[in-house]
């Protein structure tokens, strides 16, 4: 008797777990539903990392209904693993992608047919951070040091800047960095790669074990690649070249899409707190202070935009191409060997979008932009 009872109990328990699991699955099914209203053109935008303040403008354009005003229903697809934005775009999985210029130049050289239609980040946000007493103040000081880098195409600015100083990868020890700054804090790396909007903030929200308080900017030397010849263009919006060429619906959609994106970034510049809340709601796992810092620093890379947000500066483009050709990493590889085709960038679409917005009385240069001051709290909370 006892055994049958226990067996019945086990069967019951198994049924309960199975039911719970099925329920868990069914709730996840509902999430992806993006309210497919009629008339709206469905668009997919591929990001290059997890949802976070770096992409605040795109999320703001969704939250504020800017895409809908332009007749679009946009699904933002985060990455965060092995999904490469430009590959997803070239495969036709998505309609637009956000990615760094040198990485996509590499894909274009390997046959992808993509066009930079808006250069959202006008400046490079990459830093190399070392301890204040390390004596590493410039790229020339890298020689013989342990230099941190994330790899995966994020390293080209380092090698381009080193090449300009006559250094190559054999003169330094390249150490692959993790998702956090622990390797630097523990002394495994002499100078670590950091984005102004993320990893640099991670340092400033970590506790100094010697003082028991948070690290201060004075504790670090910061080399900004924007001040070196290695600076390269970063977050840009990429589109499918062939569809831009021949597909009239896609051309119209592109202008409408860019208009909404520009409005989203204007919103993020004027309301960084709301924009940060939006990216937290979209699934960024960061606390409010880190997220606000990220939106604010991202704004600084975009605004003010003298020629209008998203317009590609030919000189900066050429500098990126030259840097990409000159950069050689520790395996002897370069992102590109020759200059990319003329189709790799075009200001036609962003200019059209900006003209239409200016006709509506929108300031697309951010002339009145002023960053805010953000206080980071421990752990980014």
């Amino acid at each position, binding site marked *: 008797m*006892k*055994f049958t009872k*226990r*067996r019945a109990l*086990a*069967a019951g*328990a*198994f049924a309960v*777990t*199975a039911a*719970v*699991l*099925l*329920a*868990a*699955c069914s709730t*996840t*099914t509902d*999430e*992806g539903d993006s309210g497919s209203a009629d008339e709206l053109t469905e668009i997919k935008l591929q990001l290059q990392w*997890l*949802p976070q303040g770096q992409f605040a403008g795109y999320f703001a354009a969704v939250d504020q209904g800017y895409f809908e005003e332009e007749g679009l229903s946009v699904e933002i*697809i*985060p*990455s*965060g*693993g*092995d*999904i*490469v934005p430009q*590959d*997803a775009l070239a*495969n036709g*999985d998505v309609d637009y992608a956000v990615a760094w210029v040198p990485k996509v130049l590499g894909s274009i050289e390997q046959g992808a047919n993509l066009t930079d239609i808006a250069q959202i980040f006008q400046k490079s946000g990459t830093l190399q951070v070392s301890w204040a007493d390390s004596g590493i103040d410039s790229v020339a000081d890298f020689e013989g040091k342990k230099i941190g880098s994330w790899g995966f195409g994020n390293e080209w600015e380092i090698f381009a800047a080193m090449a300009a100083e006559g250094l190559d990868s054999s003169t330094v020890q390249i150490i692959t960095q*993790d*998702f*956090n*700054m*622990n390797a630097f*804090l*523990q002394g495994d790396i002499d100078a670590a790669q950091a984005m102004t909007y993320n990893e640099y903030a*991670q*340092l400033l*929200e*970590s*506790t100094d*074990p010697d003082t028991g308080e948070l690290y201060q900017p004075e504790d670090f030397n910061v080399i900004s690649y924007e001040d070196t010849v290695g600076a390269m263009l970063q977050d840009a919006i990429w589109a499918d070249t062939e569809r831009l060429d021949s597909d009239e619906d896609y051309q119209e959609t592109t202008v409408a899409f860019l208009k909404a994106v520009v409005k989203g970034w204007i919103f993020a510049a004027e309301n960084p707190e709301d924009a940060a809340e939006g990216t*937290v709601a979209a*699934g960024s*796992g*960061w*606390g*409010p*202070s*880190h997220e606000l810092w990220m939106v604010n620093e991202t704004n600084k890379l975009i605004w003010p935009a003298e020629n209008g947000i998203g317009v590609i500066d030919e000189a900066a483009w050429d500098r990126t191409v030259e840097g990409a050709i000159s950069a050689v990493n520790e395996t002897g590889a370069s992102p590109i060997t020759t200059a990319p085709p003329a189709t790799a960038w075009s200001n036609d679409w962003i200019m059209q979008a900006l003209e239409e917005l200016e006709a509506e009385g929108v300031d697309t240069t951010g002339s009145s932009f002023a960053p805010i001051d953000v206080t980071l*709290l*421990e*752990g*980014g*909370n």
Partner: protein
Amino acid sequence: MTATRNDQRGEVAVRPANQSGAVANPARTRLLGGFLWGIAGVALIALIWEGYKFFGPDNGVLIGELRVLPRTTDLAMPHLWDMMTRLAEPVTRADGALPLWAVVALAALMTLGIAAAGWAVGVIVGVAFALLMQRWRLAEFGLLPWIVISQTVPLIAFAPIVKSWGSRVEIGSFEWQDWMSVALIASYLAFFPITVGALKGLQSPDRIHVELFDTYAAGYWPTLVRLRLPAAVPYLLPALRLGAANAVIGAVVAEVSTGLQGGIGRLLIQFAGQASGDPSKAWGPIFGAIVLGLVAAGSVALLGIILKDYRRTEEAA
């Protein structure tokens, strides 16, 4: 002879079926003993962790340039009590933020659901392959090498392709969801041990038994249902447990690979990025992943209780 090899890890003691009444008490003692040993094991690990953290050098133990034991700083090895209190605190300072343990539990539940779906598909596919290969020798020769080769494809190459295919599947009102890509990858890892275990099990009846069925003029189906399937159970259960473990690992890795939001894999990456400023937080999803694995293995152990009449002997897979 490995008659009645007990499997104590699953806390399901296998008993000879003929001693029913007399063993109630020893069984309970054994169960209790199992729990105690389990707790003692966890306590020992905790003691080693804190002991090494207390006595070990800050910079870890190095042989030449090679670090053989980790650093003992709070950054590298937070105190266990810090990790536990961090679990109880809200995940961020934002209004209405859930405590860390709840966020981890929700994510673990989602991953468990996906892994379970993957495991179920893996069981169906795995058993189907095994039946096919047991029925026709030719199928075994033709299929088995491919099944083995299938497991050598690296997940990071495979995941983006599955996701890319998935984004194009749309049949009527059915639209491929991102979690299905993850479940598919989980099933891809889960089906392999199940196929191999089930095949071995189906082929395990002694020749004398098979010939006995032949003399009864029993056809394929009666032989399958009354002889081969019962004989396969002791081989199948460990295979199912391996499959469950593989499905969980596959789901976690595929979540990271395909960038799926909401599961434990995503939390691992997200909180690892926050480990400099909040070292204890990064351990939350690690504990979640451990519990997840235990629950998955435990659920399969429940299957073992249901099928215990057939578990006279059990082979390690």
